[in-house]
């Protein structure tokens, strides 16, 4: 998996490419923690380039979201499609997060 992260306005936009599986999820969680330790509390996770996610990836997102809640921060999502969107739907995670079609649409609201 490849992670690209940039600060845009209020939020850190993190674009994930490839597969967020049990192996990649610890790297992903570390990357989120690194930004949080610098004081960032709003994240837009853009999944346009993400082809696959498993429960390990979902757990990383949920764990981070809980930590952010204590700091009045939030996770937003964009670009869900294919198998990734299916996993978000059947796990019910799609209703826990604010989901946008594109990162551009999300950034207007954050």
């Amino acid at each position, binding site marked *: 998996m490849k992670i690209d992260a940039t600060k845009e306005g209020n939020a850190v936009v993190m674009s994930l490419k490839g597969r967020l599986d*049990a192996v990649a999820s610890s790297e992903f969680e570390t990357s989120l923690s690194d930004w949080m330790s610098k004081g960032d509390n709003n994240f837009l996770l853009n999944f346009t380039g993400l082809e696959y996610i*498993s429960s*390990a990836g979902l757990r990383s997102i949920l764990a981070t979201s809980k930590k952010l809640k204590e700091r009045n921060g939030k996770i937003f999502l964009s670009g869900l499609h294919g198998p990734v969107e299916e996993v978000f739907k059947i796990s019910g995670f799609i209703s826990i997060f604010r989901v946008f079609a594109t990162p551009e649409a999300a950034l207007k609201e954050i």
Partner: protein
Amino acid sequence: MAVLIDLRMSAKLESLGRLIGSLSNCAKAQGFEQEKISRMELAAEEALVNVFRYAYPEQPGDVEMICRLEGERLAIEIIDSGIPFDATAMPVPEVTDGDHEREPGGLGILLMKKVMDEVRYRREKDRNILTLIVQKD
């Protein structure tokens, strides 16, 4: 019932890529659609990661993955010699609640059951055998 894969590896996270890669290549070669292949990868990852995390609390062990073509369907068996564990008997979490306090424990099993056509468990000669079944059509 042609055996397409029979792969035994250490039950640890480092084995995941090789096992899933091999399953994926095999399903592709058998002409399964990408959508079905993604579902197989997901269900197999969830089953394998459960074995890595929970099957051998005391000492390291192995996991075996056997794939068989049974007519128009693929059966993926995930086998370990660890403590008895029946994923099919686990309660699945409620998916409709939207709060952040939900318990994520059974999430992998929920996904596995939802994306497979059938999931079966049997305990045989001190081994756990979880079978994931996907129809080709």
